[in-house]
């Protein structure tokens, strides 16, 4: 993986026509500006991952899986409830 240090307002160029500008750095946050052709898809990685997970979640829905998971999940919840009751 290529690692480059950039300061605020500096930028990098990817290929012929994609520019990523570091616009603002504040605490643990970086604001980026991206110049790219309209046909280039730009997504936050977590959005792409959540989309994939949603698709997989929808595909894997089945009554059998649901019933099995429900009893496990409810047991997990119950045992936690019992534990937290004990603390009071």
């Amino acid at each position: 993986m290529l690692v480059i240090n950039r300061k605020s307002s500096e930028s990098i160029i990817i290929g012929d026509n994609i520019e990523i500008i570091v616009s603002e750095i504040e605490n643990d946050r970086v604001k980026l500006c991206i110049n790219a052709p309209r046909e280039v898809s730009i997504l936050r990685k977590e959005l792409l991952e959540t989309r994939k997970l949603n698709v997989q979640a929808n595909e894997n829905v089945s009554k059998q899986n649901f019933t099995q998971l429900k009893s496990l999940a409810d047991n997990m919840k119950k045992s936690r409830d019992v534990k937290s009751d004990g603390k009071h």
Partner: protein
Amino acid sequence: MTASHLKDFEIVPKDVIHFDEGMFGFEDYKDFVIMQEDDDSCLMLLQSIQSEHPAFVVMDPVAIMSDYSPILSKHDKEYFGKDSNLKYLVVTVMFSDVSKTLVNLKSPIAIDVNTNKAKQVFVENEDYPIRYHLFESEQ
């Protein structure tokens, strides 16, 4: 699961919730019903009212993490407004091997119980993973 999940489960539609933007990957579906087999179950089915799919198994995150407290982005806070009363559900990915179950804690569904307006959001909490293994033995 095919045909009507409603009949399969013999459960009563509790609430119809509306997503202005749909769920990620399913942007065309705006209205969903939440179905619960019994009142105290933490596992629910979120199904489109337009068709039998998309459907998602969702969970009350508090059952997983008793102190689940998402931090919303400024944008999402404004979206729901000050008077909203938000509850959260997390999308669950099931597998035939139940021990592999994944839960997306990073991107819960926020529901304003006052208006039934819903949105799948990205929370700012850095320690909430996108792929959380529900059963710790898998981690």
